[in-house]
């Protein structure tokens, strides 16, 4: 992002940016940056809070007249993630004990996922591997790895395990918004998924299996965020 600021200014377009990794802004010294100590993924700070978001934009645009560049100022509010306070919400009842627990759980999440997607302003990040209809099949592939199948023989291209994990996680996290009936603080839904659900625990276990077997990094790296503790 900082490189783009340099390019645009050279081309005669004034820029102001929101920084969320301060070290990179310091090193690249773009002309005008407002550093916001907000959760990664939420550079405007608070979802569904237009007043707060506008305050951030006002502070950013206030830097535009500055020509004593580089300018790097800090926004006066900090927000930290709540990964250590996982979301608490009731899991929907499962229906088919003949299915692996994680697959049955994923199927049971679908009504909540659909409710969230129907809300005003909602979008979905379940877009890489065939959409929400495919999620139970993706979970089943991870179950096969946990049950002893090789990661390149579980029904998914090993290069796509990361994309599959992102889709599965997004499906659960978006369902969690509806289950909790509010937007969780940053990473609360992530921690709920990886620590409280069958499928989240499955992904952590599969990541460990592939890493312990010296599997390729591309097969395990994106399965679990680095901030989540090992199983």
């Amino acid at each position: 992002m900082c490189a783009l600021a340099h390019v645009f200014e050279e081309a005669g377009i004034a820029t102001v940016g929101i920084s969320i990794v301060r070290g990179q802004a310091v090193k690249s010294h773009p002309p005008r940056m407002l550093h916001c100590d907000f959760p990664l993924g939420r550079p405007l700070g608070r979802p569904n809070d237009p007043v707060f978001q506008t305050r951030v934009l006002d502070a950013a645009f206030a830097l535009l007249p500055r020509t004593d560049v580089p300018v790097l100022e800090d926004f006066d509010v900090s927000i930290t993630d709540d990964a250590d306070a996982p979301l608490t919400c009731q899991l929907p009842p499962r229906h088919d004990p003949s299915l692996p627990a994680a697959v049955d759980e994923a199927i049971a999440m679908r009504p909540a996922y659909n409710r969230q997607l129907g809300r005003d302003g909602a979008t979905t990040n379940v877009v890489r591997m065939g959409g929400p209809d495919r999620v139970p099949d993706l979970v089943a592939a991870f179950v096969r790895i946990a049950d002893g199948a090789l990661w390149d023989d579980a029904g998914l291209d090993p290069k796509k395990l990361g994309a599959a994990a992102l889709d599965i996680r997004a499906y659960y996290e978006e369902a969690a918004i509806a289950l909790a009936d509010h937007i969780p603080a940053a990473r609360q839904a992530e921690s709920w998924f990886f620590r409280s659900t069958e499928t989240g625990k499955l992904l952590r276990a599969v990541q460990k299996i592939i890493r312990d077997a010296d599997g390729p990094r591309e097969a395990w790296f994106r399965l679990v965020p680095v901030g989540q503790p090992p199983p």
Partner: protein
Amino acid sequence: MSSDAIVRRGVDDIDAFDFESTPCTVAPPLAQARVAIVTTAGLRDDGVGSWSDGQGFVVLDGAARSLTLAHVSPNFDRVGVAADLNVVYPVDRLAEMAAAGTIGSVAPRHLSFMGAQLDHTMTTMRLDTGPAAAKLLRDDGVDVVLLTPV
């Protein structure tokens, strides 16, 4: 240490391209400026969920709201943007600011790049796709770019 602190500790010290100086374009008065968003969140408005454009960019129609987040990293919160696109891409906030006269106008198109590039020299972005993006923005009469990460 928070999860974000762990991630930031890993990326704060990643090499960055050494720009020898900092260019500066004088902005027009904000109330007269046409503003575009350029995000590095890897947003797309074509329904595609993966990013295959390297250091290239995609054009986002200003009216589009059904965007997908094609960013590859698992290491940031995705719930906020799923609930409210504006927490990454504040297009509705800019429209409100234009209606209030705070900014002059909102550009008809915005741009999306992918952050977290492994090539810290950013050669393609600096010399090719970045200048092409600047030309597109100038053609749209853009005076000011708001840069947002994810």
